[in-house]
């Protein structure tokens, strides 16, 4: 029980972060290999708040998310304003992720590489599911609103979008900040689940897994990435019997998904019914 519970909890926590990247990558079309940094910021901000200052968990959770939002402006404003090509942006944000880790390793309050131990445990499965549900609602609402339309337009054709009066920078920045918020919340949940955090937990490998879940789940879908996030956490566990081979298989599964379902689990599915249709679909998936 406890084991399944723990895997599910981790899966849902990952899903919250993946939801964030789904906004940025899936709906705004911007690729990123640095979002683990936002998870890290959220984890550290919230953990420091509950650990040193005994801030209530709910508040710490939200502040964790907001902390990531603040940091997202540091990378977002210069790079998105400069209209970097997407590949350049990827590398830039990858470097940014590393830089954040360096900072975490060198601060006193984070206790550096030694890690922060003794964080209170608040992230139980019900809590995590509740947060995930709320986040799904927020993300969905965002997507079906005019802010989501703008993001989708930017993803489809930035130039045409601009000619329709869409401010590219504002749209991308809003998505980045939103995704940072979700990742921050995910990080806060993670910290209060593991009860111990270390900068090495927030590497590019972690960012990669977020991207993998988003793309395998389907660009332009909310439900797909969430399902895939949980699946990708559970997969290595299911493969534990295969022991050494499990990561080999994991890699293979990733390729197979791309080869046989190139638009992901739910690729563009909710997209075609943008607006009312999307709502119907989510309901259907829910049942």
């Amino acid at each position: 029980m406890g084991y399944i519970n723990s895997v599910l909890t981790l899966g849902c926590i990952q899903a919250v972060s993946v939801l964030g990247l789904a906004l940025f990558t899936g709906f705004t079309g911007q690729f990123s290999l640095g979002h683990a940094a936002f998870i890290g910021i959220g984890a550290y901000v919230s953990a420091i708040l509950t650990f040193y200052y005994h801030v209530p968990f709910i508040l710490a959770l939200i502040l964790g998310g907001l902390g990531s939002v603040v940091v997202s402006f540091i990378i977002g404003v210069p790079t998105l304003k400069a209209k970097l090509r997407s590949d350049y942006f990827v590398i830039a944000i990858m470097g940014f992720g590393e830089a954040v880790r360096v900072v975490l390793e060198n601060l006193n309050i984070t206790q550096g590489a030694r890690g922060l131990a003794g964080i209170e445990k608040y992230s139980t499965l019900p809590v995590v599911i509740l947060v995930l549900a709320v986040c799904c609602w927020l993300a969905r609402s965002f997507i079906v609103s005019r802010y989501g339309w703008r993001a989708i337009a930017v993803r489809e054709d930035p130039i045409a979008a601009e000619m329709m009066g869409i401010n590219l920078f504002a749209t991308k920045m809003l998505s980045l900040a939103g995704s940072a918020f979700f990742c921050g919340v995910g990080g806060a949940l993670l910290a209060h689940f593991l009860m111990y955090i270390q900068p090495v937990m927030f590497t590019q490998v972690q960012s990669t897994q977020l991207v993998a879940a988003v793309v395998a789940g389907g660009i332009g879908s909310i439900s797909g990435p969430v399902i895939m996030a949980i699946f990708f956490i559970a997969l290595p566990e299911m493969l534990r019997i295969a022991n050494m081979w499990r990561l080999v298989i994991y890699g293979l599964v990733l390729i197979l998904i791309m080869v046989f379902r190139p638009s992901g689990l739910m690729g563009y599915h909710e997209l075609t019914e943008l607006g009312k249709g999307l709502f119907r679909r989510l309901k259907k998936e829910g049942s």
Partner: protein
Amino acid sequence: GNAGNGGATTSPATSAQTASSDPAPSFSGEPIKIGHAVALTGDASVFGQSEATGLELAVKAVNEAGGILGREVVLVKADTRADPAETVNAVRRLVDQEKVHAIIGVAQSGVAMSATPIVTAAKIPMISTTSSNPYVTINKETGALNKYVFRVCFIDPYQGTATAQYAFKELGVKNAAILYDVGSDYSQWLATYFEEAFIAAGGTITGKEAYRTGELDFRAPLGKIKETSPELLFLPVTQKDAALICKQARDIKIESIFMGGDNWASPDILSLGKEAVEGAYFINLASFDDPRIKGWVEENKSAFKGDVVRNAILAYDAMLWLADSIERAGSTDGEKIATELENTKDLEVLTTDSFNVDPATHNPLDRAAYIMTIENNAFKYVMTFAPAVN
């Protein structure tokens, strides 16, 4: 040089060997399940894989000697990749799914720390092989003892102090520099304790440089260190980094003595470092020259066709310690086992005749610090060094 205890006592390993010719003992009751949470993949798997061999031999020996409480001991492995999040799943799985009675392994301090809450809640004793961070067994904030968490290795302050004092007193080094990995908690701790102890002993630290995990080229920090011409360069880092650092230091003509921590104790450092590590010193948890374990190492090598690292030896010790405690507890109740683990006295294990545990810290007492050197591309035992603790 020879191991301190000199004469060849019959180690449990050798007795296990003789027992193997006997017919297989018959067991009664449910087997006792021991979980092994270990990095089988990832960079740390060099240690993890070897640790697994040591534990397998230990379980074999215990079973051949009739098991524990007449019951067979079975081993369940779970891969941690040395990653804290992964470890939570691995340990949960061992505890909840496999229903193990005790856990051995969790070799890295960070990994052990993320496992601590789980085993504490489940009341499953856990013996860590090589997590040397003092706060694995003790809660840093409250100072309270983690009742179910133990370790078989010595802790970082002890190791840092031992190396510093040995360098100052025995090698007669008056100034030293440090190059460490900021991304590794182990390296950070050891660097700190070495620095403190070396200064306390009367030496000077001429330079303290750091790099980040994954670095391959150390010429820049080494260049800075070279300017300060230290007599000794302390490298509390992994064997891979150590080998590279030594090579590159010699390339840019740094003539200092190199010294390292227990992480150096992998044959890799010899094959990688070659001439550059000649004459270097490091501290170890066991000496391969020790006649007590020489035979065992050979046995392990022939059984698993691989190099043996210290984790194998520590895992073996941990298993014997655990077996003895369960036997004395008379049951597989976690609480009782933990109490017996805590009260272990003068137990005969692979590395020593009298293994004692400090009930206040769950650390082993008087764990010998073996000073090793590298000579003719081989490890050579120098002495067993007991640091003066104030």
